[in-house]
């Protein structure tokens, strides 16, 4: 085809990526809106290997070209991830949009990436010279920037089963019920045993970049839930202090207030 490559195996796709500048294309929902002039695409939408949802002992594997609609109908996909992606846009976008595209687009408002951060997700990258399997934290550098290599493709994302089984918290604040990009969203997974926090994750959309607040998380581990609830204001303050709030379309003031409220709501929900 003119101005495009359409491999049917991942091996072929990786070889094309290695020797050309073709732009990986999965669902097209970000790329076609960007409308890059004179684009040459590497179409990934008919590669079966990239469209599988599977599991092994440790991980749920979601192929890079799995669509949100496909994932919503699959029992292997954990509830936190389902809740996050069920609120993306509207059916026609969920029918086309993929996990690889959501991550590859490097937006700071990607809903599946938020859920992935809360669940300690990893991404498997492949190239002709080999593969890398790295945590989301290392993949997402900042808004618009990932550390994917020029010759690499996203093959799949991996969700640790141990985290997928934990109770979780998720809230998205957008401008309306459908077709609303998250202004602020909050996701976390936690484990409480005998009233004591054993494990906890907290991550947000709204700071302007994706990150995990591991220092704040560490201060909560080993604490009694009652104590944490009683001092929620103080913990929220520490949480907010860690954030740099990169300038964006939504005012910093607004985002700070909403993130603070959601963090406190999260602490109140622990059980």
């Amino acid at each position: 085809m003119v101005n495009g490559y359409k491999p049917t195996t991942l091996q072929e796709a990786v070889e094309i990526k290695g020797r050309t500048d073709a732009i990986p294309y999965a669902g097209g929902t970000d790329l076609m809106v960007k409308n890059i002039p004179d684009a040459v695409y590497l179409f990934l939408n008919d590669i079966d290997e990239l469209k599988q949802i599977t599991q092994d002992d440790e991980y749920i594997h979601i192929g890079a070209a799995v669509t949100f609609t496909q994932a919503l109908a699959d029992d292997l996909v954990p509830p936190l991830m389902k809740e996050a992606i069920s609120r993306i846009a509207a059916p026609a976008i969920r029918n086309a949009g993929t996990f690889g595209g959501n991550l590859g687009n490097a937006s700071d408002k990607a809903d599946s990436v938020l859920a992935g951060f809360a669940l300690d997700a990893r991404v498997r990258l492949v190239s002709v010279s080999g593969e890398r399997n790295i945590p989301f934290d290392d993949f997402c550098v900042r808004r618009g920037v990932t550390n994917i290599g020029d010759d690499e493709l996203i093959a799949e994302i991996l969700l640790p089963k141990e985290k997928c089984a934990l109770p979780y918290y998720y809230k998205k604040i957008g401008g309306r019920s459908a077709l609303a990009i998250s202004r602020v969203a909050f996701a976390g997974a936690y484990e409480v045993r005998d009233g004591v926090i054993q494990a906890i994750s907290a991550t947000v959309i709204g700071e302007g970049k994706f990150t995990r607040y591991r220092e704040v998380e560490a201060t909560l581990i080993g604490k009694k839930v009652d104590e944490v609830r009683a001092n929620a204001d103080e913990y929220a303050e520490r949480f907010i202090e860690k954030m740099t709030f990169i300038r964006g379309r939504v005012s910093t003031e607004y985002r700070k207030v909403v993130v603070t409220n959601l963090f406190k709501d999260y602490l109140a929900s622990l059980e």
Partner: protein
Amino acid sequence: MNGIRFRLNGKDTCYEGSAADRLLDVLRDEYDMKSVKCGCKEGECGACAVLIDGVLINSCCVAMGAVDSHEILTVEGYRETARFEALSKAFADLSAVQCGFCIPGMILAAEALLSKNAHPTEQEVRTALSGNICRCTGYNAIVNAVMNAAKEGDGLW
């Protein structure tokens, strides 16, 4: 170089242009499928929606290379069916059409829903149409028309 081969409303078709061309533009300009409307080119309005292998997709968000070996249905093809008749009658009966710009997308969104769920609840209809923007009707008449079509056209889906 091979062209891009796909089925359009049941007919084998081969597109010789660029794989990066937008499906929406190609459908309207090359194949004269004027039921497919352009309201935004940003995936937001649903006026350009088509069915690809039976799945609702906004054609403004699709590059031609992606449809190679797939099957596209627009209202030009769908209108030959009894299902379309049922929807068309329900939309007329309930005065669910004003300017008409959003309607082809609404019809295909309704077909995408009913083909998977022949007896949807009102909420399911609203969710299924949530990516289709209408500037005229205020939606209620459209939602009622889809509910009516499901009832009157029982057995078609």
